[in-house]
């Protein structure tokens, strides 16, 4: 199937909002531009085969002698634009102003080929004559800095120095001839226009989603507020959902083998795994009230939107690369490698997804502290009761006791001598309050364990056996 068709189908069937579809790269419009450009070139005898042959002659020569020091051997150049640096803010960037330039010897009218072997040169000359290059109605490059094409008629450039004007290299003894083309300007104007449209859309969507996330964040904060008695049973449910969410690493890998941003396919797969797991744990059923179910739905919805944004960005990116490839196939002008240095494709994946994911975690997930962030680095259980050493590292009191009994005087994390002199004064009461509020069940369990182990310390292992019978 042709890409144009696939692209159209995808845009129609993926359920993108209509304003997204309207902002998508218009592949068919650009294709028409290319067709027009191809016929413009054909009119002056520069069908892709001819241009390709010209280009190849030079490349072959360069390759055979390893003299590919620069492109001065090229009989022609296709310059996209002198000063449209992608580092400039987009308001300051000029639109594309592509030029197809031939270098022709001032006296003989030969196509420029200074370093070429005699027979290659004559072949080129033959080709140029055969395809009518020397009979072209040509414009000379203006020497002033104006880029206006109307002025670029009969002025002559000084032939005796090698300098650059508007990014175009002047060569001594050669006239620069521009082949008059209009469809390529149109092509690039259309393309850049659509890219900035995509960028604007992305900015708009990002703002909208941030607002949505903020709203949901407030809701989750309310639903999980440990001060509300009704929430008591719900906090662990939300915690489990978010724990599974974090572990699913849907949009970004977090393991040794996978630590990159995921593409839409992979992220979609991970998202499915996440929803399956939640379903399997029966977590939704534990939400008795509609407000919790609604909040969870909103959370799932936001994630689906991020996924869609990823998918939309990807297919547009592919569409752009495909259309540039088509451009080259029909004109042999080699833009596929040069265009990406002039434009920045607005990546939904790296902007939208990253920004939105960051705010999902900072605005929503953060409302429910996860156990992993409050576990003791030694026993990996909840750090109850929390002891803050002088070095700032926090362990549970049980591990502190174990360390002190074993004469482990140094902090396991920073190796400072801070374990040896820790005492009751090191208890972190504020953190203790926090843990009691957010992890009441875990605190209870750990408290029981700590007491049991204290008994063992005092009376030996037999204490444990007695206790477990009771």
């Amino acid at each position, binding site marked *: 199937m042709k890409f144009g068709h696939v692209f159209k189908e995808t845009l129609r069937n993926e359920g993108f909002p209509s304003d997204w579809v309207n902002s998508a790269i218009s592949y068919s419009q650009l294709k028409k531009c290319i067709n027009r450009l191809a016929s413009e070139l054909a009119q002056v005898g520069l069908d892709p085969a001819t241009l390709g042959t010209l280009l190849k002659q030079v490349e072959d020569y360069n390759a055979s002698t390893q003299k590919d020091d620069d492109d001065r051997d090229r009989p022609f150049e296709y310059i996209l634009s002198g000063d449209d640096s992608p580092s400039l803010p987009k308001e300051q960037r000029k639109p594309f102003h592509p030029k197809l330039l031939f270098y022709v010897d001032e006296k003989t009218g030969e196509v420029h080929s200074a370093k070429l072997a005699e027979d290659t040169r004559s072949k080129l000359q033959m080709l140029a004559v055969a395809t009518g290059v020397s009979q072209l109605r040509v414009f000379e490059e203006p020497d002033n800095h104006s880029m206006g094409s109307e002025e670029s008629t009969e002025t002559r450039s000084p032939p005796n120095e090698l300098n650059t004007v508007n990014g175009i290299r002047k060569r001594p003894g050669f006239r620069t001839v521009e082949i008059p083309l209009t469809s390529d300007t149109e092509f690039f104007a259309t393309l850049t226009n659509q890219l900035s449209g995509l960028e604007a859309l992305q900015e708009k969507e990002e703002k909208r989603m941030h607002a949505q996330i903020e709203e949901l964040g407030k809701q989750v904060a309310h639903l999980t507020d440990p001060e509300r008695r009704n929430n008591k049973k719900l906090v662990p449910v939300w915690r489990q959902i978010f724990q599974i969410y974090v572990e699913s690493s849907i949009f970004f890998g977090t393991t040794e*083998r996978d630590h990159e941003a995921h593409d839409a396919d992979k992220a979609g797969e991970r998202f499915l795994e996440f929803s399956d797991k939640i379903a399997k744990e029966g977590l939704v059923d534990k939400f008795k009230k509609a407000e919790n179910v609604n909040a969870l739905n909103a959370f799932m919805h936001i994630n689906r939107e991020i996924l869609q944004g990823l998918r939309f960005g990807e297919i547009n990116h592919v569409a752009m690369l495909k259309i540039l490839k088509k451009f080259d196939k029909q004109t042999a002008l080699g833009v596929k490698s040069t265009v990406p240095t002039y434009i920045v494709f607005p990546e939904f994946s790296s902007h939208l997804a990253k920004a939105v994911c960051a705010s999902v975690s900072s605005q929503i997930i953060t409302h429910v502290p996860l156990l992993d962030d409050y576990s003791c680095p030694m026993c990996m259980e909840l750090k109850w009761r929390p002891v803050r050493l002088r070095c700032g590292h926090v362990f549970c009191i049980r591990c502190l006791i174990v360390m002190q009994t*074993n004469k482990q005087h140094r902090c*396991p994390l920073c190796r400072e001598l801070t374990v040896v002199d820790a005492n009751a004064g090191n208890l972190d009461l504020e953190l203790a309050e926090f843990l009691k509020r957010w992890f009441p069940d875990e605190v209870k369990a750990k408290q029981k364990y700590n007491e049991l182990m204290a008994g063992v310390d005092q009376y030996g292992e037999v204490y444990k056996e007695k206790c477990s019978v009771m």
Partner: protein
Amino acid sequence: MSLSKRIIKETQRLAEDAVPGISAVPHDDNLRYFDVTIDGPSQSPYEGGVFKAELFLPDDYPMTPPKIRFLTRIYHPNIDRLGRICLDVLKSNWSPALQIRTILLSIQALLGAPNPDDPLANDVAQAWKQDEQAAIQTAREWTEKHAKP
């Protein structure tokens, strides 16, 4: 003695977030005993070899370090004939915050950077210091002979 939360968590992470070139799988009947394999680091004489080791977590782990020993024969100045390893983090520099994965990474690094000035296998260290090229060649041959699956 029941398995601590810590050992359960470490084991889980070893399986789910495996380190490339390293595996550690606990025995079904003794969850403190692990079968370990370490791939020889590239650009080292152990490249291409897969080295088996056994790892045991003592009762007072993590107060004391895991006990680990190579089962595959290896020609290395810091590993002796019985497979015992001379590595500071397994002895004086152990810290209860270190984990199985960090230890195995250190051992893999040791394979990439033998240290004949702190030897365990004295004869190997001697050979290493006298003629490094020859020692490396021997290490390569041993890898070929003992560590190829």
